[in-house]
C-alpha cells in the first residue's frame, strides 16, 4: 500500500475535524476524497503531508511513518492545490527551476521543458507567472507537481478554476500520466462528474467521519442514486451514513 491511514483523529480546540478515519490507497490508484466544506478533506491531506500534527492515529506512506520519515516521503510525493500559488513575479521557467532545485531534480531544464510541452504551455516559459490565465496557472502547478516524478500526488481541487475544455484535457492528461507512471493520486474536487470520470475509488467524509467508500458506481448504487452528485447532496444534507442508508430509494 502507498497510503495507510489508521484511526486518524484531529481535534482543534474541542472540535473534531477528522474522526477515526482509516483508509488505504494502492499503487497506481486514483482515490477521491469527497465531502462538503468542513468535512475534513483538507485537514486529512495536510496531515498526510506532515504539516498538521494528528491528535491520534497513524499515517504510513510508502510503508514509513510520516512523523519519523517526513522528508524521505515528501521527496517521493508532490502536491498541487487551487488554493496555493507559485511566486507571481517569477517567470514560469524560473519557478520550475527553483522547485527542481528544492526537489533535487537532475536535468531540470529538460524535465521542465518536457512538462511544459506536455501541458501545452511551453510557449509561456519566459512569461511572468502572474500574467498567466487561471487555466495556464493550474497547468503550471501540475508541471511543478510532476517535476520530481512523484509516486504519490495529492491534488486538492486541481481543476477548480478551469473551463470545461481545459479541465477535460487536464483530466485526460492526468489519467494518462497516472497509467504510464503508476502514480497514486489522492484527489479532491467538488465536481462529482469529474470524480466519476477520474477516480477508481472514492471516500465520502462528513463531519470528519468516513461515511462511504468504494468505486464510484458502487457508491452510487449503494445509495440508490443516479449520480455521484446526488450521493454528495444526500450526504451533505442528511449527514450520517446510517440514516442515509436506511432511507428507501425514491
Amino acid at each position, binding site marked *: 500500500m502507498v497510503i495507510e491511514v489508521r484511526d486518524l483523529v484531529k481535534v482543534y480546540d474541542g472540535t473534531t475535524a477528522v474522526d477515526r478515519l482509516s483508509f488505504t490507497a494502492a499503487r497506481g490508484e486514483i482515490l477521491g476524497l469527497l465531502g462538503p466544506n468542513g468535512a475534513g478533506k483538507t485537514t486529512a491531506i*495536510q496531515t498526510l503531508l506532515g504539516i498538521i500534527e494528528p491528535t491520534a492515529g497513524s499515517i504510513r506512506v510508502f510503508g514509513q511513518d510520516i512523523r519519523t520519515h517526513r522528508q524521505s516521503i515528501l521527496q517521493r510525493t508532490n502536491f498541487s492545490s487551487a488554493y496555493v500559488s507559485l511566486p507571481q513575479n*517569477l517567470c514560469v521557467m524560473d519557478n520550475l527551476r527553483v522547485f527542481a532545485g*528544492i526537489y533535487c531534480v537532475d536535468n531540470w531544464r529538460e524535465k521542465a521543458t518536457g512538462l511544459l510541452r506536455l501541458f501545452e504551455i511551453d510557449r509561456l516559459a519566459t512569461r511572468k507567472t502572474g500574467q498567466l490565465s487561471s487555466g495556464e496557472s493550474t497547468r503550471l502547478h501540475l508541471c511543478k507537481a510532476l517535476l520530481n516524478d512523484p509516486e504519490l500526488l495529492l491534488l486538492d481541487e486541481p481543476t477548480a478554476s478551469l473551463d470545461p475544455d481545459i479541465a477535460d484535457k487536464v483530466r485526460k492528461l492526468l489519467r494518462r500520466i497516472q497509467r504510464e507512471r503508476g502514480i497514486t493520486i489522492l484527489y479532491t474536487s467538488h465536481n462529482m462528474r469529474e470524480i466519476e470520470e477520474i477516480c477508481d475509488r472514492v471516500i465520502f467524509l462528513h463531519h470528519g467521519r468516513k461515511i462511504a467508500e468504494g468505486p464510484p458506481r458502487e457508491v452510487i448504487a449503494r445509495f440508490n442514486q443516479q449520480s455521484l452528485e446526488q450521493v454528495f447532496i444526500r450526504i451533505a444534507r442528511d449527514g450520517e451514513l446510517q440514516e442515509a442508508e436506511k432511507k428507501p430509494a425514491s
Partner: protein
Amino acid sequence: MNLRRINALLLRYLLLYRQSWTRVMEIFFWPVMDLLVWGFLTNYLINVGAGSVPAMVTFLIGSMIFWDLLYRAQQGVTISFLEDVWARNLLNIFVAPVTITEFLVATFALGIIKVLVNGLVLALLAWALYAFNIFQLGFTLIPFVLSLMLMGWAMGMATVALIMRWGHAAEALAWGIPFLVQPLSAVFYPVSVLPQWLQPVAWALPCTYVFEGMREVLRSGQVPWEMFWWSLGLNVVYLAASALFFRYLFGVVRVRGLLGKLGAE
C-alpha cells in the same frame, strides 16, 4: 542539511530582486534616506558646535550604518518568509522535502548578501558625502558586523515564529521588533544616558556592545575586545533561545494546523 535545496531557496529569493526594481529600490531607499538625515545632522552639530562638539560626533553616521546592517540581517529572515506568505507559496515550500533548518539557513544567507551589499553602498556614500570612513574601524569591523548579523538572525527567527503562530495580524512585527530594541541598545548614545534601572537591560542586548565598542574605537583607537566577546556570548544565548522558541511555536502551529491557513489565505 542539503546544500542544493538551500541554494534553490536562496535562488528563489534572489530571483525576486532580479524581477522587481521596486524591491531593489526598497533595499537602498530607506538606508540612503537615513544616511542623508544623520549625515547632515552630524555636519550641523559640528558646525554649530564650532569646536565645542568633538569631531567624533561622526560616530552617528557609523551608528546609523551599523543599525541598518542589524536591521537588514533581521529582514533577510522575516521578509523572505513573508514573501512566501504573500505569494501563497508557503505550502509549496513546506510540503516539499525542505527542513526548517534548510529554510532558515537560506534566509540567513540572504541576510548576509543584503548586509554586504547594503554595508558597501552605505560605506561608500558615507565616505563620498561626509568623509566618514567606516573602515577606520579596521579589522574590528568584521567581528562587529558578524555580531550584528547573528543578532539579526536571532530576532528574525523569533519574528517568523510569531508570524507563523499569529498569522497576518502579526506581520507588522517584521518591521516593528528591531525598533523595539533600538532605544535600549544605545545605537546613537551611550548606555550611561539611559536611566540607571534600564542600563542592565541595555547590557543584556548583544548589539549594545557593538555600538559601545564602535564608539570606543572611534574615540580612543583602542579595540575593546571584551565588548566583542560579550556580544558574541550573548548572541550564542539569543540564537539558542530563538531556535528553541521557533521550534516550540512551530510545534504549536502544526498542532493547530495554522501553516495551511497562513499559506492559503
